[in-house]
């Protein structure tokens, strides 16, 4: 019986020591857990954004002209946009509200033809509150990037003479690096749709399929090819400025905008083509 009492006393001491240890480390642990969970919320938000928001707001929140505004933009984070709409709450509340309720009417000064749909379940949308919160966390995580990018120059479209829709036009020397950058820019908007592959842009090589440069050459040589291009470069130009001259089987003949001939300069078109021809 004595050892029962002795060991029991030891056990009491152990309990006290462990509880004291937990008490001392608890504040740091709780903080670390909260921090970790906030980060995981961003991860969840990233996946939800990919599935629900990207088709209109772009893969990196850069927005798509004529579809939805940029949300990876400095004016959202520096307070200008909140001021413009007269919102006095926090940015978190603003984004949460817009995601959860949607936008039944466009904001003053904007003229997007589509309305932001309602996403919150309590207002008839598909997402639960925790999912809305996760998307907000993900969007807020763009803050550093958006503010840092504010100082940098951006790619613009249409300065200079437009390239037009003639595939036989002679183009200046193209710069593949400039083309790569343009292809990813919000202004050109290519990646909003052409990024449906599991990895990266759809024009890159994937699995057994070669890059778009190689593919373009094969298409021109195909027997069912119905366009006017004679070389891979011309085929690519035609696909951009006159996209319905030939539509690859399985694709909808209404998705690609018809106005790139008017929006791109000859130099920009040449850059894009040089970039794409380099992908094999």
């Amino acid at each position: 019986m004595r050892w029962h009492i002795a060991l029991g006393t030891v056990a009491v001491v152990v309990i006290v020591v462990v509880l004291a240890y937990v008490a001392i480390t608890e504040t740091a642990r709780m903080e670390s857990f909260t921090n970790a969970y906030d980060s995981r919320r961003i991860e969840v938000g990233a996946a939800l954004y990919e599935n629900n928001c990207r088709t209109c707001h772009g893969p990196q929140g850069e927005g798509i002209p004529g579809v939805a505004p940029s949300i990876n933009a400095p004016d959202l984070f520096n307070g200008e946009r909140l001021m413009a709409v007269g919102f006095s709450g926090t940015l978190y509340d603003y984004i949460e509200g817009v995601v959860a309720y949607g936008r039944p009417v466009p904001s003053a000064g904007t003229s997007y033809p589509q309305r932001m749909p309602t996403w919150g379940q309590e207002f008839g949308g598909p997402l639960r509150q925790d999912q809305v919160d996760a998307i907000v966390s993900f969007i807020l995580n763009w803050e550093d990037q958006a503010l840092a990018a504010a100082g940098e120059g951006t790619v613009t479209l249409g300065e200079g003479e437009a390239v037009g829709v003639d595939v036989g036009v002679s183009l200046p020397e193209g710069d593949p690096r400039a083309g790569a950058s343009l292809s990813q820019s919000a202004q050109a908007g290519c990646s909003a749709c052409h990024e449906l592959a599991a990895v990266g842009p759809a024009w890159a090589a994937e699995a057994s399929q070669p890059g778009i440069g190689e593919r373009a050459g094969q298409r021109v040589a195909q027997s069912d090819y119905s366009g006017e291009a004679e070389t891979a470069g011309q085929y690519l130009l035609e696909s951009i400025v006159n996209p319905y001259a030939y539509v690859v089987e399985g694709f909808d003949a209404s998705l690609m905008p018809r106005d790139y001939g008017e929006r791109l300069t000859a130099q920009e078109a040449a850059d894009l083509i040089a970039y794409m021809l380099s992908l094999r």
Partner: protein
Amino acid sequence: MSIFNLHLPILDEIKEHGLKTTVRDRSVDVVTRLTSGLSPSDIRSILRDDPPGRPNPRLKPHSEGFWLHMKPTYYHQLMDGVYPTFRLGWLSTFFFVFEIITGVLLMVYYTPSPAFAYENMLTILGNVPFGRLLRDMHRLGAELMVAVVMLHALRTFLTGSYKKPRQFTWATGMILLLVTWLLSFSGYLLPWDQLSLWAVTIGVSMVEAIPPEIVGQTVNLLARGAPEFGANGLLRWYLLHVVAMPLVGIIFFGVHYYKVIHHGHSLPPEDEEVGEDTAKRVPTDTRVYFFPTIATRELFYTVALTAMMVVGSLFIHAPLEPHADPLITPLHSTAPWYFLWLQGMLKLGDKVIWGLIVPGVLISGLLVLPYIEVGPSRRYGDRRIGLTAGAVTTLLFAILSYMGSPWYAVQTSAEQEAVAELVPETHPGPLRLSDWNELQVGTYDASAYEAAPTEALHDLLEEFDHELARIPRDERTDHEGIMVIENWQTGLKKITLRVLWTTVADGNPGEYSQTLYLHEDSNYGQGE
């Protein structure tokens, strides 16, 4: 003496005997009243193991107090060792009380609503001091309680203690086993994470099979509160967990323990004549008194087990998976381990036969076992058939439990399984646990793991490659694993795992891919 005409006898006492003596006498009095008859010197002599006085003051708490009125004043010395009880009944009681205490504390921070429940878990883990410890202890205690209660039933069967006159004790014990299962199972749903929702959904899905259809549908609706689990379902299982089942448990515990004491603890089978029950006849020289021996030991067990639970909870953490989502079934979802045998049976075929009739017959069979199996001898040697049947049943339960696990007869694609080894859906897994900074941006081929730029990538790609190599090549061949890591946001990487293959039959290429976003501070592996 009187102050303002108020007469206080204690003041007379102080005047007569002095302050020190009076305080001492009064303290002794208070202790004696609280212990229903044990003075501090009695307690001291108990702890010192001195011989009791005459009349034995240590019997008074049994005769006068509430808490010990059902506890025997002495036990047979044969019951004093670890064998034959292994203290399993006592342990079950300990865990029951332990769960009530930790459970009540957790209730303070819990709201039974899908809108708040998961958020409450995050609060308990991130904003309540000792919150994680409480949750971990409650969870660990629950698992151990189920195990201990099941072992208790098994032990009772092995020593033949269910036999006459203890048939009813066994039957109430079987009900307590069901209560324990339901207590633990109903607790599963409360955190409202993926584990909760799917474990309980799988568990409840079999009531749907009850014939006729209208009954199955109604019971299913009652259990879920709606066609699918939601606010009503959660509230129902919460009430089951915190009110109904504990209440039933307390009532049947009372009956069970009363019966145990009424018949006496059954002695080891080899120490009794066949067909006799001598538990109540305890000769004076074989008695072990509750005070001091049993009481100090139970006190010791209580603190030692509490210490084990506290220490154990530092290392074994209750899981918390992502928020419950009725639209996404995680790969490898299972019922809780003690219901795996049931899930295993369901894989054998018809839901009605294997999900209801067979388990129903089994459990009712166990309930009435002592009324059917009436062989008089409790000796092991005389119960060869019974013990063999018991061993076979236990083995069958183990095999069925294995069959209930996801490793048996679950049809998922081998490619998906290979990816799930790196990015499992029920626990963090190697990719989430890797050093974030070592996940360098780039495209990597699993087969070229030797060339990986960092150690973490090397290990991940090697595992990926090995998992792919294990896929049988009879239908699909030429498997190629690709891992693509992209910078996605500040502190956030997008990782895509792709498996490419060629179908043997027609030579067409195929692909499976899964995407994961990983934040630099998400710090998996905190136990959740």
